């Protein structure tokens, strides 16, 4: 198993090319091409701004401007949920490769996670532009935690992606199940409402069990709220759990590996 993991390093060139291909292929044939990666989050953010300042003004004092607050959680969530949706189908879609070309199958789900991470970074640029526009400065000292949060999310998402992709080979309805589950998960995570609100506190134990709570809250702390990073402990526990999850998922993936070429 660890030899296989090391082998991935040898294939980094391929992973790189496949991520690039994924990004290129997504908007190939559309007039604006790669700019959609910017336009999508831009439009989304504009709509939220309009809705939460004009139509449905949210006056929660801790989270203003509200649209920006939400966006700090939605961007990483989109990375997470699109990664899982795409990864779950990645082995089935890449069946031709698995059957005909010698290369480690785990590359396929990992590539979807990485490609969506690139989209996340592009969306981040829009967010930063808006933060600057609103002259809303987070604590610059807290920003050193930002790469740590991204890394924890990467490991966590990659672990789930491996698990789901391997299972979907055998159970094709996981994708339908997943889209519903993700919807539920989204609303169960403090993304569109602030963490430690009175209503949320009442269910704190439940929220603490939700791994994405710690990621969303960390992003909000680092990108949005002023003041030192206060969620380090939760994040580190979450990081350790993610590492365990990833190794467990990889082990599971490795066990099922030989069945892929035959079942896909």
């Amino acid at each position, binding site marked *: 198993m660890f030899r296989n993991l090391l082998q991935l390093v040898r294939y980094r060139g391929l992973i790189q090319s496949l991520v690039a291909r994924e990004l290129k*292929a997504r908007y190939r044939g559309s007039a604006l091409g790669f700019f959609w990666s910017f336009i999508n989050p831009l439009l989304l953010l504009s709509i939220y701004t309009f809705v939460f300042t004009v139509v449905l003004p949210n006056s929660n004092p801790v989270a203003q401007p509200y649209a920006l607050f939400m966006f700090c959680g939605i961007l990483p969530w989109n990375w997470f949920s699109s990664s899982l949706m795409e990864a779950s189908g990645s082995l089935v879609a890449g069946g031709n490769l698995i059957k005909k070309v010698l290369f480690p199958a785990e590359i396929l789900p990992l590539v979807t996670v990485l490609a969506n991470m690139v989209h996340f970074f592009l969306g981040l640029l829009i967010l930063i532009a808006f933060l600057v526009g609103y002259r809303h400065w987070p604590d610059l000292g807290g920003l050193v935690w930002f790469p740590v949060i991204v890394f924890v999310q990467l490991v966590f998402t990659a672990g789930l992606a491996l698990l789901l992709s391997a299972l979907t080979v055998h159970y094709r309805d996981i994708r339908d*199940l997943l889209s519903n589950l993700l919807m539920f998960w989204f609303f169960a995570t403090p993304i569109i409402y602030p963490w430690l609100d009175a209503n949320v506190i009442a269910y704190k134990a439940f929220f603490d069990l939700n791994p994405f709570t710690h990621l969303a809250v960390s992003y909000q702390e680092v990108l949005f709220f002023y003041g030192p990073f206060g969620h380090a402990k939760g994040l580190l526990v979450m990081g350790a759990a993610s590492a365990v999850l990833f190794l467990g998922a990889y082990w599971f993936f490795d066990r099922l590996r030989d*069945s892929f070429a035959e079942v896909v």
Partner: protein
Amino acid sequence: MSAIELSHVTKIYRRYGGRQFATLKSALLQRSILRDLRPADVFAALQDVSFRVEAGRTFGVIGRNGSGKSTALKLVAGITKPTSGAVSVHGRISALIELGAGFHPEISGRENVFINAVMLGLSKREVAERFDQIVAFAEIEPFIDAPVKTYSSGMYMRLGFAVAIHVDPDVLLVDEVLAVGDEGFTHKCLDKFAEFRRRGKTILLVTHSLGLVERFCDEALWLDHGRVRAEGDPKRVVDAYLTSVEEAEGEMLAATTARAVRAASDVTGPAQEPAPSGDGPAESAEPPSNMYTAVEGRWGSREIEITEVTLVDGAGSPSFVFPAGMPMAVRLRVRAHAPVDDFVFGVALFNAEGVCCYGTNTYLEEMDPARLVGDAEVTFAIDSLDLVEGTYKLDVAVHKRDGYPYDYHRLLYTFRTSSRTRDTGIYRPKHHWTFQGGVTFQPQRRTTA
């Protein structure tokens, strides 16, 4: 040093659960998650297969469909793992198993070449160095920047082939991919293989093209139902394989013939039985109105009956496959239910397209009938079956001089002429070539049958 070595390799494919795809819902409902992830049924694609290919040799694998050839290739390529036994390969492998597997339709040929080559094990710099060669080899320079989805299937395959062959492997695995282009491109591929051989690379070739194996390979392996049937000199292995194929074909033709005869006889046996649908030729006691479009069948008054038809070879043993140029005979057993003094025996040969290759009868050959009583045997012997390879059908009949049929068997008997020469047409006259002056040929690559 051996480049490829398989020792006692068995590959068992598992069939999961006996249904196409499991659903998680049903798995949860029936608490069968663990069971579903375990194989329900097994199928041995390879059983105790051992062979080794020395470095620099070209090794051909032949065998019928489903004999495990492609599985063997995938094991060597490392795409699947053996269930038991060991596979070892030395050197960089490139597998021409499915060309252009992994091309993404939306992006350009150029980008696909890069990704595909990296996938096959080249570094980006190596791809950049070989890029022009690859494109030139595939002959698609004008389209290299167009998305691959706009390519014709030929262009797609050629590009896939070009990439795989330019990976410059030490061991090249080829699975029946030479049919990727027009004649010119095929020759180019063969030239490329020849170049590989000259440079001391190892080639493992899986193919149905036996000529290619004989011409090209240093050694051959014949797989049959997942086991090694023969290994060694390509000519010898191919011959053994062909013999077995002919035997199997003979069995198949025997079954076909038996079925045709039975079907025709069932309908006409009780000759007066009303026809189930119209009065097609098969049910009629009268000959069909148009002899040239008649389908297989049997008709006649049965005053004389053909009770048995046997095809025999030169040694007199029944067969359904006859080597071209060798003797063959049609043996009829007939029975006259009452003494008859007007009878003609006839035989005609048709090829698969229904063209009459030859037809004759005793009356045409000026034998005037005198008397036929009780049981008799009639043999129509061909000294030399001068037909090209193919499947032929046979008419046999006994009728009056004016054509009134006693028993007419139309196209009921099928046999095959086998030949190693791929000549065309119907008739192969006995012939030979002679040359005078400055004509020379390469030393004979193989003897023709």
